[in-house]
């Protein structure tokens, strides 16, 4: 739980000096349609919680970097902002950890050109180390009309800014309409709670993309990046309570880091990783359901299922195009049916991505994001906890982690008995159980000796790949049915037949592989029992 002004070091009460804290900015960003922002400005809610009148200022910011974007690659952004007659140079870092905090240093300057040696803080200086001031050039500009209010809410003071304006490069200009909620004092959960109150007034989206990131993207004409498989930063001896917060924060971060790429659709990895993040989230909530039963937890599971479901078709058509159409096309490059099939699948893919964008713009998505953020910052699972639950929460995670992996492993073994004779839907159950085991293992892996966990993880991956192929085939058949059911195009039907035949042949070839991987998996020793690292 982040607190802006630490009252006292929590970790080691009475234990030595607190390390000097680097300047931190804790901020939640919400975007909305300009007309909705205008409506929100006049809402009673803001009048009730504002501590005074709002002030409006014009802000012009120049963003600087080297031609090869050395600052950006270090995770830093540098801007000089004109506020009336004043100039302020600001250096910011990427997010620190999985919360809303980032490092921020500000210093007054005489003019709009950057002065790197104006920063005194050693951390800021280290970030800029070796970057020659003369190599910096002005990359893009933001021009913002900012209306600022100070809001007082229970347990926090928040600066609320309504930003309307543009981000400009030499060639292009992009509109900005967003709200920034910056924590001045109090607890981070209050930002999310405030976000939820604003969401009751107008449709909003939680925006993960800073103005600087948008500018860089415009300059480089690069699609948003995809963030893969983040390792959960669990540490042996951490309490169950902290482990829940750490895992959920990491799932939320994994989701939000891929949201822009999912929306963009240029890289199939975006939707894929966002779905993985949501499945991991659901899986984490399911794992801890028994430890901390809570109605909010159940609601979060349902809502993340809805969101993952909305991303499903886009992912299915991405896989269909990449894993089915592509290989067949390279086998039969001039087949006219395959070209028709590809075109039809691409239209479906477009529709899938339209559904993704609709879901991400749906206030339901923002509500899920904000509710999860609030719940995990506040450690909402402690609500209505009994003494037995609270006691379980302060135990070290290690024991529970081993039990949870063991449980997931036993379930796989039970469902997969006599795998060779199982029906497709029974195999599907085994595949789901394997996924649960995978996620439990991914979450808790840092607690165990890597030497023992690694071979297990590798074999689990091989088995999952073998199962995944079966699933791709089953999904492809369903998708083909959708493509052909209302079409009289004989070329399309012919291509569909081709794909079915290709898959049937492939399925026959992979069956021995699946059974071999299963036997190898059953033979490998558990890493979660026995000596610890």
């Amino acid at each position: 739980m982040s607190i802006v002004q630490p009252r006292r070091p929590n970790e080691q009460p009475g234990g030595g000096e607190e390390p000097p804290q680097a300047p931190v900015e804790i901020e939640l960003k919400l975007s909305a349609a300009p007309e909705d922002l205008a409506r929100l400005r006049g809402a009673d809610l803001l009048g009730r919680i504002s501590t005074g009148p709002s002030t409006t200022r014009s802000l012009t910011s120049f963003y600087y970097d080297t031609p090869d974007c050395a600052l950006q690659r270090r995770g830093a952004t540098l801007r000089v902002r004109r506020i009336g007659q004043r100039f302020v140079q600001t250096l910011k870092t990427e997010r620190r950890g999985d919360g809303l905090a980032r490092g921020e240093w500000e210093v007054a300057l005489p003019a709009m050109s950057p002065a790197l040696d104006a920063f005194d803080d050693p951390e800021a200086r280290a970030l800029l180390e070796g970057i020659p001031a003369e190599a910096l050039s002005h990359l893009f500009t933001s021009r913002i009309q900012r209306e600022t209010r100070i809001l007082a809410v229970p347990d926090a003071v928040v600066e609320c800014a309504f930003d309307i304006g543009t981000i400009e490069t030499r060639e292009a200009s992009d509109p900005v309409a967003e709200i920034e909620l910056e924590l001045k004092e109090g607890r981070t959960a209050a930002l999310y709670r405030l976000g939820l109150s604003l969401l009751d007034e107008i449709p909003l989206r939680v925006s993960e993309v800073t103005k600087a990131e948008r500018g860089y993207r415009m300059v480089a004409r690069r699609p948003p990046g995809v963030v893969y498989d983040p390792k959960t930063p669990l540490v042996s001896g951490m309490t169950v309570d902290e482990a829940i917060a750490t895992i959920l924060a990491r799932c939320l971060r994994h989701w939000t880091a891929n949201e822009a790429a999912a929306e963009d659709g240029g890289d199939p990895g975006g939707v894929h990783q966002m779905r993985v993040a949501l499945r991991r989230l659901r899986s984490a909530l399911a794992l801890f359901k028994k430890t901390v039963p809570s109605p909010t937890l159940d609601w979060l599971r349902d809502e993340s299922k809805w969101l993952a479901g909305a991303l499903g078709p886009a992912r299915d058509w991405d896989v269909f195009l990449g894993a089915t159409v592509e290989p067949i096309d390279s086998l039969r490059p001039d087949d006219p049916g395959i070209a028709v099939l590809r075109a039809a699948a691409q239209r479906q893919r477009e529709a899938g991505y339209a559904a993704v964008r609709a879901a991400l713009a749906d206030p339901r998505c923002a509500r899920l994001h904000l509710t999860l953020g609030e719940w995990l910052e506040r450690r909402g699972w402690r609500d209505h906890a009994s003494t037995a639950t609270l006691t379980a929460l302060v135990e070290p995670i290690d024991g529970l982690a081993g039990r949870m992996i063991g449980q997931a492993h036993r379930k796989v073994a039970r469902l997969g008995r006599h795998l060779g004779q199982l029906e497709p839907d029974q195999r599907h159950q085994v595949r789901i159980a394997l996924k649960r085991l995978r996620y439990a293992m991914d979450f808790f892996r840092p607690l165990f000796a890597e030497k023992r966990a690694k071979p297990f993880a590798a074999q689990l991956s091989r088995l999952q790949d073998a199962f995944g192929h079966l699933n791709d085939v089953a999904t492809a058949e369903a998708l083909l049915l959708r493509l052909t059911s209302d079409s009289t195009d004989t070329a399309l039907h012919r291509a569909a037949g081709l794909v079915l035949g290709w898959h049937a042949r492939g399925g026959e070839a992979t069956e021995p592989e699946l059974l071999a991987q299963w036997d190898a998996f059953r033979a490998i020793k558990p890493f979660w029992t026995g000596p610890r690292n």
Partner: protein
Amino acid sequence: MISVLVANTKGGCGKTTIATTLASAFAGQGHFTVLADVDRQHSSLDWAKRRPDGAPALAGLDWAKEEFAVPKDAERLVIDAPAALKMKQVEALLKLADVIILPVLPSAFDEEATRRFLARLEELKPIRKSRAAVAIVGNRMRTRTRAAAQLDAFLGGLGHKVVSRIRDSTAYTEAAADGLSVFDLRGRRAEDLREDWAPLLRHIAEASEA
């Protein structure tokens, strides 16, 4: 976080009653409260295990065999220390504590042991900084008895005074049997008994602010 260490080298002076009552008082105020039991006999932990679901929840920690690890962002920590403690353990626990509570009984009262314990506490650095941090609690007191007056005189001689006088009442044992304390009970009698604790709770709040 405010942490409270309940300790005395003498056994049977009601450490567990003080620790569990304080923990339930904090939990009832809505604080995330941790009750750490250093005693191998686990009387505090057993009390927490008996605690019904409806009562304000607190977390029980077994510190008898484990390292003294405090959960992050706990708001109140109550440590129930056993009578037999090695000096090294006492030192480690003292480092954690904002307030040290020394329960003493007016009867069967071992002046020499208390004098020695107080002297040892004062040798240790964190205490020297603020003497106010040691709170002496007279447990199972009957007011206006000769024993009570004797206790006051003795502690006055040592430069300490009794912060709270906790009356002797069967309500304590009855509530404890159900994993509760006088802070969880309703009625005039419990309300009356809670008044004994008010000076101590005030003292803890003030000492931790200082």
